[in-house]
C-alpha cells in the first residue's frame, strides 16, 4: 500500500493504540481538529476522549503529565504542535524525562512527537530543528525518520521503548514522499543506520529531509564520476557508530549534512566521532553542509539560501572528492 510519510505516522499511532491500551495521545488540537497537520485525524472518533486528549495550550503540563502518566504504567504520546515549542517544555524534557530512570529507577516510556524542519515558508518559529539539544541531554532517545517506512517503524519502536523518545517528524516530508509499506506489523529498531546508496568515493551522512537531498546530490555526482555512499542515520541517540565509522573508513572522505544550524549541531558530533575513531583512514577534511547560524528566515529567497539542498551538498562533495 502506498502511503505518505504522514499517513505512515498516523498508522503507527492507530495500530499501537489498538495493540496496547496503555497508549494514549495528548496535545493541542489533536482530537477534534486532528492535529495541525492532521496526523491524528480520526483517532478521537476511534478511541474516545480519554485516549485522545485535546489539551489547552500548556507545553509544560503536556510533557510533565505525560511523564507522570508513564510512571503509572501508561504509554503516552505527546504532540508538541511545532518542534519550536519544545523550548517551552525544555525543563520537563531534559530534567524530568531524561533523568528519572537514572536517579530513581522510574522508567519514562513517553514519546514526544513534533513536526520539525523547514522549507515550507513557515519562518523562524515553525521550522526549527532542535535535535542537537536533545542529543546533549542524557537519557533521551532522539529519532529522525526520513522515509514513510521508517516513520512508521521507528514510531512503533518509540512507543514500545521504555525510555523517553524525542520523535522529530519532518514536516517538509509529510505529504511530499510516498512509498509502499508492509501492511503487517513491523518495527525499525533504534541504532541501525540505513545505507541508502552504496558508494566508494565518499560518504554523505544525513538524516530527516536531508537524506533525500543527499540522494539527489549522489545522482548528480554519479554523472560526474563521483561514487557517493549515502547513510541515513535514522536515530541520533542511539547512534549507529559502527555503520558511520565503517563508511568513513571505507571511503576516507565524509560530508555531513543537516538542516539545523551549524555551530554545535549534531554534525559536529559526527565529525568528532570520525576525527577520533576513523582518523587513520581519512583522506580529506570532514565537511559539514548545514544551515548557517541564523534563525530560519521566512521569505523564499532567504530560506532557500539558508536551507541545505542537493546542490550545496554536491558542491561540497565535489571539493572533497578533488582533495
Amino acid at each position: 500500500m502506498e502511503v505518505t510519510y504522514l499517513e505512515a505516522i498516523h498508522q503507527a499511532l492507530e495500530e499501537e493504540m489498538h495493540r496496547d491500551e496503555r497508549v494514549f495521545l495528548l496535545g493541542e488540537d489533536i482530537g477534534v481538529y486532528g492535529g495541525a497537520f492532521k496526523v491524528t485525524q480520526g483517532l478521537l472518533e476511534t478511541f474516545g476522549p480519554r485516549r485522545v486528549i485535546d489539551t489547552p495550550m500548556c507545553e509544560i503540563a503536556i510533557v510533565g503529565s505525560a511523564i507522570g502518566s508513564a510512571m503509572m504504567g501508561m504509554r503516552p504520546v505527546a504532540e508538541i504542535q511545532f518542534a519550536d515549542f519544545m523550548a517551552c517544555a525544555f525543563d520537563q524534557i531534559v530534567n524530568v524525562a531524561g533523568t528519572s530512570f537514572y536517579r530513581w529507577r522510574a522508567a519514562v516510556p513517553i514519546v514526544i512527537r513534533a513536526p520539525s524542519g523547514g522549507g515550507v515558508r513557515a519562518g523562524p518559529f515553525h521550522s526549527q530543528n532542535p535535535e542537537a539539544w536533545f542529543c546533549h541531554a542524557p537519557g533521551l532517545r532522539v529519532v529522525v525518520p526520513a522515509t514513510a517506512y521508517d516513520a512508521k517503524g521507528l514510531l512503533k519502536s518509540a512507543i514500545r521503548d521504555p525510555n523517553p523518545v524525542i520523535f522529530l517528524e519532518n514536516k517538509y516530508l509529510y505529504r511530499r514522499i510516498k512509498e509502499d509499506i508492509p501492511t503487517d506489523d513491523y518495527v525499525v529498531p533504534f541504532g541501525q543506520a540505513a545505507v541508502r546508496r552504496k558508494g566508494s568515493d565518499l560518504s554523505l551522512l544525513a538524516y530527516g529531509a536531508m537524506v533525500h537531498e543527499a540522494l539527489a546530490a549522489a545522482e548528480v555526482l554519479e554523472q560526474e564520476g563521483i561514487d557517493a555512499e549515502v547513510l541515513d542515520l535514522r536515530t541520533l541517540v542511539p547512534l549507529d557508530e559502527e555503520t558511520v565509522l565503517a563508511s568513513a573508513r571505507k571511503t576516507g572522505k565524509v560530508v555531513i549534512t543537516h538542516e539545523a544550524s551549524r555551530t554545535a549541531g549534531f554534525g559536529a558530533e559526527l565529525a568528532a566521532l570520525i576525527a577520533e575513531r576513523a582518523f587513520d583512514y581519512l583522506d580529506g577534511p570532514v565537511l559539514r553542509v548545514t544551515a548557517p547560524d541564523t534563525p530560519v528566515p521566512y521569505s523564499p529567497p532567504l530560506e532557500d539560501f539558508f536551507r541545505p539542498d542537493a546542490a550545496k551538498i554536491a558542491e561540497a562533495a565535489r571539493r572533497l572528492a578533488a582533495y
Partner: protein
Amino acid sequence: MTLPNEDLLQIYEYMLLTRAVDDRIDLLFKQGKIEGVSFSSLGHEAIAVGAAWALGPDDVVAPLHRDLGAYLVRGITPRQVLAQFLGRRTALSRGRDGNTHGMGDLNLGILGYVSPLPDQLPLTLGAAMAFWVRQEPRVALAFFGDGSSSEGAAHETLNLASVLKAPAVFICENNQFAYSTPTKKQFAIENLADRAAGYGIPGVVVDGNDVLAVYDVVHKAVERARRGEGPTLIEAKTMRMRGHAAHDDAFYVPQELLAAWREKDPIRRFEAALRQQGLLSDELAEEIASRVAAAVDDATTFAEKSPFPEGREALEGVFCDV
C-alpha cells in the same frame, strides 16, 4: 470618558482600514501570493483599535496576530504590513519573519512578537519594568489570547507584574477558540478576568465588539498604571470570525455561533452609533471608505513591487554590532 468627535471618526477610519487590509491579506493569500500561514484580525477591530487608542505617545504596545488595528493606530503603514506578508525587503522584518510576526518598531513603541505564545507578556512586563526602574510615567500594554492564558508565561508575568506594581496593562482577547479548542476545554471558569483576583489586581470584562467600551476600560487601566497603582487584567470578549489561519475552514465552529456574532459586528455597530449621533453622513462615510480603499490599493502595489531580499542577506545581522 467622552472622546472628541475627531477621535471617534479616526477610530472609525482605523477600524475600516484594519478590515480592508485584512480582506486584502485574505485575497492575496487566496491568490497564492502569501507563503506559509496568514492570520486574520476579522472581528478583533474594536479591541485592537480601542485599546491602542487609549495609549499615550510614549507608551508601548505588544500586539499579537489578531491586532492589526493596533499596529496601524501606532503608525505602522499598510505598505509595511503588506510588504511583511509578502516577505519583501521593505517590510519591517525585511523578509526574515512572516505575517505579523516580528512586525515591531521600537520607534513607534511597538514590540514585535514571537510565535511561542504568550511570550509578549513577559516582554511587555519588561518594558513596564524599565519605566518602573526609571520612574517614568509610561505604560506598556500587551494583548494575549484565551488560548495563551493557559501558558505558564501568562501566570509568571501577571504575578511578577502585580508584585512590582509595574505600569502594565494586560488585555486578553477571548475569542472563544484557541485554534480548534473551545474555551470550555481550555479552562473551567466563565471569565478569565476573574483570575485577576488571584494576583491582587483588578480584573475587568468588556464587550470586545464595542470599541468605545474597550477604549474606556483600557484608558482607565492605563491611567491607573501611570499613577503607579499597578497592572490591570482586562478580558475582552469577542469571536474569531475566520479560521485560525487562512488554511483553516473552522469546521469545528458552530454556524449559529458565528451568525450570532456576525450580528454584533464591531464596525457596523460603531458605524450605526456614529450615524445616530449625526457624526457620520453618507458622504463622509464614502469619503472615508475611498480613502481606505486607496490606501490598501497603494499598499498592495507598493508591496508587490517591492523587491524580495537576496538570499545572502539571510546571513546579515544575527548580532548587533553597535
